[in-house]
C-alpha cells in the first residue's frame, strides 16, 4: 500500500535537507523491518521547504510466534513431575491449561512458558505510533526551537502530510498534527490543498509551482542554462557546489540571464565570479576562459515576464562589482612589498605573534623544504613567494571576499610582474582546501602549501589547541590532509619527522608545550589523517594498518607500500606469508633482543634460512629506499619455503640456551626486515582475527 510523508518547513539549508533524506530512508528501513512490516522501494525527495518519503508498505505486520515466559522450570514443576501452584497461576493468567505449557530454553536457563501466534497489527496503527519518533530523531548540524515548545528541528515545521492506503494517518510531532493536505509555493500557493495519492500529490504540487524531485529540478536548471548559453556560444564557469545548493534552494527553478556593464571586465575572473557567487549565488559565464559581461541566476519562480527579477539582480550585482572594482584599484596603489610592512600589525593568534612572524617562519621552512627535495632552481622563488604569501590579508578585496585569500595575492603579484613561479605559488598556497580540491599545480605552490599548513598545525598544537571529536575550529584536520595529499600527488620524498623538527625549531620559544609532546601528538594526528585518506580511497583497513603502523616518516612511501600490498593481496603467496609473519611474531613475543652468531647455526635448515634471508635482504634494501615496494614484496615471498622448512625441522625453543637465543635472533632479524615493507601481522586473513 502506498505511504506518503511530507514534512513542510520554513527554509532549511541544502546540507540539512540532504542529511535528513538519508536519515529518513535509513530509519524507515530499520523501523519497518523491526516492526515486521514488509515493504517495497522507499524513495525520498526534498526541497528547502519539504522532506518527502514515499514507499510501498504491507497493510499489516506479519503474524509472528511470540514466546511468553512464565516461572523457571524448577519452580513450575515439582520433583515428582507435577505442576506447582506457580505454574497453575501462570497458565490461568494466560488463559490456557497447565498441560499446554512448554519448557523454553533461554539464556538464563529453562523456564515454563508458551508460544502463541500473534496476529500482526494493522500497519496504519504501527506507523502512527512510530512516526513521531522517526521525525523527532532526525539530527541536523544545527538545531533550533521555536514557539513555546522544546522540540528541536532544522527549521520550524509548518505542516505534515501523511497518507497510508489513501487515508490520513493520525499522529502529531513538534506541535503539528499530521493531515492529508499539502501547501504549494510559498508565494503563489501558500494555502492548504488535500491530496489522496502520491500521483495526485506530485501533480498538484507541480501545478502549485513545486517540483519535489531534486533530480528533476537539477535537469530543469541544466536544460534552461543550456538554452541560454547556446545563444551566447559560451559556457558556465563551473561551480558544482553552487549548482548543488541551488537545486535545493528553490522549489521551482527559473533561470535568468542578466548582464553587467563591460567596464567591470577589467576585474579578474576570480574576483568577478566570487562577487557573483557570494550573496546572489549567480554563475559567471565564460568564453575561451574569458569572462563575458553576463551572468546566470536561478530564481524560485515560474517566470520573469516583466524582467523584474533580472533587472533587480543586475542592479544589485552592479553595486557589488562597483565596490569590487574600487577595491581592486585601491589595492594596487600600494605595492605588495610596501603593504607587507603592515603584516606585523595583524595578529595570527595571540600566543603565536603576527603574520610578519609567520612570514619569517615560512621563509625558513620553504628554504629547508626546497633543499630537501632538491628544488634548486625554485628555491629563491619559493622564498620570495613566502614573503608575499600573507600580504593580501591587508587588501580591501580580501576583506570584502575572504575566500579569495591567496588568489588575490597571486593576482596582484602577477600584476606587479613577479616571475610565474612566484605568483603561482602565492595564488595556490591555500590549496587544497579539501581532499576534493586540487593540489597546487606548481612545485613552488606545493612547497609553500606544505610549509603554511604545517606551520599552522604545529603552532596550534604547540599552544595547547587540539582536535577533539567533531570540533576542529582551526581546521587542523583539513590542513593535515592537505599536506598528505600534496606530498603523495607530488611524489615528494622527504623525512616528515625532520621536517617537523625543523618547523618546531623555527617556532623556537613561542611554543608553550614541550617539543617532544608536540611532535608525538602531530605524528599521531598525521597517522590518523593518513588512515582516513586511505580509507576514503577504498583500501582495506587492515592493509592500511599494516602500512601506517610501520611509521609515516616518508608519507609518499607509505602510499607506495599500501599500493604494493593492495596489488599483491590476491597473489597465492600473500596469505602464506602473512601466516608465517604472524607465527614469527608469536614466537618472538616478549623476547629480548639477541644477536646472530653464524657459527652457532647448526642445522641445515637454519643455515639455509640464514642464507636466503641474507640474499633477500641485500636485494630488497635498495628497492625499499627507491620506494619499489611491489618488487620488494615479491622478493620477500621467496622466504616462504626456507622458513617453512626451518619450522618443520628445527626446534626454536630448544633447551640449549645458546642455540635457542641464536634461532630467536635469526627470526628477529627476519621480522625486522619484513617490517621495513609492511607490518604483516596486522593483516587479517579469513577465519582469523587480527592479532593486535
Amino acid at each position, binding site marked *: 500500500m502506498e505511504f506518503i510523508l511530507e514534512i513542510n518547513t*520554513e*527554509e532549511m*539549508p541544502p546540507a540539512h535537507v540532504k542529511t535528513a533524506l538519508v536519515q529518513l530512508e535509513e530509519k524507515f528501513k530499520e523501523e519497518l523491518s523491526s516492526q515486521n512490516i514488509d515493504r517495497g522501494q522507499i524513495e525520498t525527495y526534498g526541497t*528547502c521547504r519539504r522532506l518527502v518519503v514515499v514507499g510501498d508498505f504491507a497493510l499489516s505486520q506479519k503474524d509472528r510466534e511470540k514466546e511468553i515466559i512464565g516461572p523457571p522450570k524448577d519452580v513450575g514443576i515439582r520433583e515428582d513431575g507435577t505442576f506447582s501452584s506457580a505454574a497453575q497461576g501462570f497458565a490461568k493468567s494466560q488463559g490456557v491449561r497447565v498441560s499446554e505449557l512448554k519448557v523454553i530454553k533461554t539464556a538464563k536457563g529453562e523456564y515454563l512458558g508458551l508460544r502463541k501466534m500473534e496476529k500482526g497489527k494493522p500497519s496504519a496503527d504501527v506507523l502512527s505510533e512510530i512516526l513521531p519518533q522517526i521525525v523527532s530523531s532526525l539530527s541536523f548540524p*544545527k538545531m*533550533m*526551537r*521555536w*514557539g*513555546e515548545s*522544546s522540540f528541536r528541528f532544522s*527549521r*520550524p515545521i*509548518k505542516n505534515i502530510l501523511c497518507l497510508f492506503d489513501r487515508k490520513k494517518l493520525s499522529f502529531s510531532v513538534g506541535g503539528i498534527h499530521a493531515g492529508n493536505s499539502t501547501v504549494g509555493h*510559498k*508565494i*503563489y500557493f*501558500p494555502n492548504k490543498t488535500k491530496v489522496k495519492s502520491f500521483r495526485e500529490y506530485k501533480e498538484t504540487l507541480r501545478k502549485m509551482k513545486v517540483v519535489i524531485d531534486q533530480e528533476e529540478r537539477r535537469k530543469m536548471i541544466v536544460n534552461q542554462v543550456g538554452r541560454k548559453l547556446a545563444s551566447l556560444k559560451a559556457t558556465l564557469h563551473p561551480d558544482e557546489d553552487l549548482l548543488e545548493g541551488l537545486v535545493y*534552494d*528553490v522549489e521551482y527553478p*527559473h533561470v535568468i540571464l542578466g548582464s553587467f556593464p563591460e567596464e567591470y571586465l577589467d576585474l579578474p575572473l576570480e574576483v568577478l565570479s566570487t562577487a557573483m557567487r557570494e*550573496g*546572489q*549565488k*549567480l554563475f559567471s559565464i565564460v568564453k575561451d576562459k574569458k569572462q563575458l559581461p553576463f551572468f546566470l*541566476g536561478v*530564481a*524560485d*519562480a515560474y517566470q*520573469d*515576464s*516583466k524582467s*523584474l*527579477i533580472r*533587472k*533587480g*539582480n543586475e*542592479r*544589485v*550585482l*552592479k*553595486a557589488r562589482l*562597483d*565596490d569590487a572594482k574600487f577595491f581592486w584599484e585601491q589595492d594596487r596603489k600600494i605595492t605588495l612589498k610596501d603593504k607587507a610592512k603592515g603584516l606585523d*600589525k*595583524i*595578529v595570527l593568534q*595571540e600566543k603565536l605573534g*603576527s603574520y610578519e612572524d609567520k612570514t619569517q617562519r615560512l621563509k625558513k621552512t620553504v628554504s629547508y623544504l626546497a633543499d630537501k627535495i632538491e628544488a634548486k632552481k625554485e628555491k629563491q622563488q619559493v622564498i620570495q613567494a613566502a614573503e608575499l604569501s600573507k600580504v593580501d590579508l591587508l587588501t580591501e578585496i580580501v576583506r570584502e571576499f575572504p575566500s579569495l585569500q591567496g588568489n588575490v595575492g597571486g593576482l596582484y603579484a602577477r600584476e606587479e610582474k613577479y616571475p610565474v613561479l612566484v605568483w603561482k605559488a602565492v595564488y595556490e598556497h591555500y590549496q587544497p582546501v579539501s581532499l576534493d580540491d586540487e593540489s597546487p599545480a606548481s612545485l613552488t605552490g606545493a612547497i609553500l602549501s606544505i610549509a603554511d599548513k604545517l606551520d599552522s598545525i604545529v603552532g596550534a598544537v604547540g599552544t595547547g589547541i587540539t582536535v577533539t571529536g567533531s570540533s576542529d575550529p582551526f581546521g587542523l584536520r583539513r590542513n593535515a590532509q592537505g599536506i598528505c595529499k600534496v606530498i603523495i600527488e607530488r611524489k615528494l620524498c622527504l623525512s616528515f619527522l625532520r621536517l617537523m623538527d625543523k618547523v618546531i625549531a623555527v617556532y623556537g620559544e613561542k611554543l608553550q608545550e614541550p617539543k617532544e609532546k608536540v611532535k608525538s601528538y602531530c605524528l599521531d594526528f598525521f597517522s590518523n589523517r593518513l588512515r582516513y585518506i586511505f580509507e576514503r580511497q577504498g583500501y582495506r583497513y587492515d592493509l592500511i594498518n599494516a602500512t601506517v603502523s610501520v611509521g609515516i616518516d616518508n608519507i609518499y612511501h607509505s602510499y607506495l607500500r599500501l599500493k604494493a600490498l593492495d596489488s599483491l593481496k590476491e597473489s597465492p603467496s600473500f596469505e602464506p606469508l602473512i601466516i608465517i609473519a604472524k607465527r614469527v611474531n608469536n614466537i618472538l613475543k616478549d623476547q629480548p633482543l639477541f644477536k646472530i652468531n653464524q657459527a652457532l647455526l647448526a642445522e641445515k635448515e637454519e643455515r639455509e634460512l640464514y642464507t636466503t634471508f641474507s640474499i633477500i635482504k641485500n636485494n630488497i634494501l635498495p628497492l625499499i629506499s627507491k620506494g619499489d615496494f611491489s618488487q620488494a614484496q615479491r622478493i620477500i615471498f621467496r622466504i616462504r619455503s626456507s622458513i617453512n622448512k626451518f619450522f618443520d625441522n628445527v626446534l626454536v625453543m630448544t633447551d640449549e640456551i645458546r642455540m635457542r637465543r641464536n634461532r630467536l635472533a635469526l627470526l628477529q632479524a627476519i621480522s625486522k626486515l619484513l617490517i621495513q615493507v609492511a607490518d604483516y601481522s596486522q593483516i587479517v586473513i579469513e577465519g582469523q582475527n587480527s592479532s593486535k
Partner: protein
Amino acid sequence: MSIQNLIMDLQKFWAERGCYLAQSYDLEVGAGTMTPDTFFRVLDKRPWKVAYVQPSRRPTDGRYGENPHRVQKHFQYQVIMKPAPSDIQQIYIKSLAALGINLQDHDIRFDEDDWEAPSIGAWGVGWQVLLDGLEITQFTYFQQAGGIDLFPVPVEITYGLERLEMFLEGKDNIFDLNWSEDVSYQDLRFIEEREFSEYNFSLANVRRLKDSFLLNEKEARLLIDKDLLLPAYDMCLKCSHFFNLLDSRGAISVTERVKMIAQIRNLASQIAEKYIARESSP
C-alpha cells in the same frame, strides 16, 4: 513613494499585528537589536511585541557621502514578536505585499544566515531575506542569550529601510531617495555623512575616547553592583560606541581590541544574567 511612507506602512502593518510602536532609542547603537526594547525583553518569559525605527551607527562604514550604498548611519526597522506566531513567515511576506510589492513578479528567498553575538552568549537561527538578489531583511529566531535557552522563542525581523526604499523607488544611489515628497535623503543626510566621516576617521580625539570608554566601563560596573541594570546597560552601549569610534580612527592595537571587546562582553553578559535572575525569581 518615500521613506516616511515606507515607515508609516510598516508601522500600520505591525501595529495591526499587535506590536507596540516604540520610539527610537536615544543612544548611539550599532543595530536595532541593541536597544533595551530588544536586549532585555527577549530574555524573560513574558510575551512581547514591539516595532520601531532605530538609527544605527557604524562609523567604519562612512564614505563621506561619496559612496552610493555605504553610510555611517542607516535606519533599521526592528520587529520583535515573542512568542513568534506560527505563521510569522507568511505575515512577513504579507508585510512586503503591504508595501505595494507585487510578489508574484519577484523572487523572494530565505537564505541561511544565522546570527551570533558571542559577547553576550547569544545566538539565533535564521535567514537573510533576498528580494531579486537584494538583501532587505534579517529574520532570526533567537535561541539563547546569556548562555540561557530563551523561552518562549522570540523572532526578530530587521528591515534595512534604505535598501528596501531603493528597491521600491528603483534607484541606484541612496542619496537619491525621497524621505518625504519634498525632502530627499541627500537634503537630510549628505552633510551629516560628510561631517561624521570626517569626525569618525580623522578628528575624534583618541585620548578622550579611551578615557570615556574607561569611565563608562567603570560606571557600568558600579551600577551592576547596585542592580541598576538599565542605566548600567546604557553605559555599556556607550562603551560599545566609543569602541566603534576608536576602531574607525584605526587607534586600537590588536591586543587592545581583544581586551576592549572582552570588557564590553563582560558587562553585557553580567547585565543579562542579573536581569534573568531578577525576572525569574518570584
